[in-house]
């Protein structure tokens, strides 16, 4: 059977065209109104802000005029599509009526695809004529749809020009930081400081310290300092993981070796964020403070006779690493959240402080045990 159905609704197209025309009218009027607003503003307001307002109003007005032009064009194109679909339907109906008039039985919505051997010459001629009409109608339909698609292309182009697609998402700073210090993917590490504190008595000794998987905190708001502090366990984990492998090596070295190794660790941490343009030099200096914390812990532990030299070195490396991780992660987190550069060192300080104190709490828990 040759199908005579016409896809699409000409009446629906006309109704939509009328509504597009209404929007075209509204945007065209808006363009004119914006031009008048700009002129009256220029008459009664001078200065840099006035110039900026006038320039922006001019841009928006031009956008409105362009949108109005596009909508008028679409209105015409959509009405043309409706008209052509009607013409196609009329041709197909004509073809069917010719076949019917010749006494050829037709299935619903179509005509026979091939002549029946029982037909007479008049019926064969009518059928052939109908087939030619159907082919011509389908060509017209295809042409109408192609014309409409070309019109739609102008919409796509305008949309791309006015509202360009968002750039592909780059790996987050936290992800890159995580890669740099070989931590697990961050989401299952992220934190709740109180929860970790609650679990301190149960934590295993270093370097097997692990932190519970906690859901990602809500990043919708920018209460960055709280989040930086909340992120501290991640950062501690990062520090621990970065240093755990080195702790055994450090523990075999003399105390003076720690002093040499600590700056190297800090440099590695700094290198890991060298590609973060929003972290200023002053922020990186905070990471160096983490090294100082480690050395301070070592010096404090020198007064304790119950610790071996290996234990002192391990504890110092842990506190220093936690502070470095805290400062680094705090800054990265704030950068990720869009905090401006002057505040990033503050985030580093908060993260470093949290990392330092949490690590000391961990050592306290181990001591108590």
């Amino acid at each position, binding site marked *: 059977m040759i199908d005579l159905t*016409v*896809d*699409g*609704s000409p009446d*629906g*197209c006309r*109704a*939509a*065209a009328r*509504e*597009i025309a*209404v*929007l075209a*009218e*509204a*945007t065209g*009027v*808006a363009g004119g*109104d*914006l031009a008048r*607003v700009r002129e*009256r*503003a220029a*008459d*009664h*307001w*001078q*200065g*840099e*802000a*006035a110039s900026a*307002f006038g320039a*922006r*109003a001019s841009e*928006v007005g031009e*956008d*409105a005029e362009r*949108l109005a032009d*596009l*909508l008028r064009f*679409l209105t015409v194109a*959509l009405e043309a*599509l409706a008209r052509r*679909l009607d013409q196609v339907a009329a041709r197909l109906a004509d073809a069917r009526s010719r076949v019917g008039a010749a006494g050829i039985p037709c299935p619903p919505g179509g005509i026979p695809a091939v002549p029946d051997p029982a037909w007479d010459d008049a019926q064969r001629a009518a059928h052939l004529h109908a087939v030619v009409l159907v082919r011509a109608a389908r060509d017209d*339909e295809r042409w109408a*749809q192609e014309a*409409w*698609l070309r019109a*739609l292309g102008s*919409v*796509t182009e*305008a*949309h791309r020009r*006015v*509202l360009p697609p968002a750039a592909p998402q780059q790996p987050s700073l936290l992800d890159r930081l995580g890669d740099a210090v070989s931590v697990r993917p961050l989401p299952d590490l992220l934190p709740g400081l109180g929860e970790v504190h609650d679990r301190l008595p149960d934590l295993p000794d270093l370097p097997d310290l692990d932190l519970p998987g906690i859901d990602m905190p809500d990043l919708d708001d920018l209460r960055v300092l709280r989040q930086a502090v909340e992120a501290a366990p991640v950062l501690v984990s990062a520090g621990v993981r970065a240093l755990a492998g080195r702790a055994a090596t450090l523990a075999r070295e003399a105390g003076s070796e720690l002093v040499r190794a600590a700056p190297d660790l800090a440099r590695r941490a700094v290198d890991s964020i060298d590609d973060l343009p929003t972290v200023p030099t002053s922020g990186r200096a905070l990471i160096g403070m983490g090294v100082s914390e480690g050395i301070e812990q070592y010096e404090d532990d020198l007064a304790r006779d119950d610790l071996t030299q290996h234990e002192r070195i391990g504890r110092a490396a842990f506190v220093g690493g936690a502070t470095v991780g805290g400062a680094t992660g705090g800054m990265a987190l704030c950068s990720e959240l869009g905090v401006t550069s002057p505040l990033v060192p503050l985030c580093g300080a908060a993260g470093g402080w949290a990392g330092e104190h949490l690590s000391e709490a961990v050592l306290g828990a181990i001591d108590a045990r």
Partner: protein
Amino acid sequence: MCDIDIHPDAIGRLPGELDRLRGRVARAATLPAPDTGATATATRSAIGAITDLAAALVSDTTRLGDDLRQVLRSYEQADDNVAFLVRSLGGGLP
């Protein structure tokens, strides 16, 4: 030239005008996606794009009105400060 060189009576009427034109566009910006047959999917996508463009125009116009209101508020505050200074100086004059 100073940004405070402004005639608030004239400028003060403009945000309302921007609101009205924005409202006209917003009310007309809900469009049906007609059944165009073989191109129905592309048509739906284009109607969505047109709606986006109209929404962007509404948003831009809203921003312009908000900016003007902010300027007028700043002017009023500055005017209050100047009035306060004049009163203070006037009180100190013989």
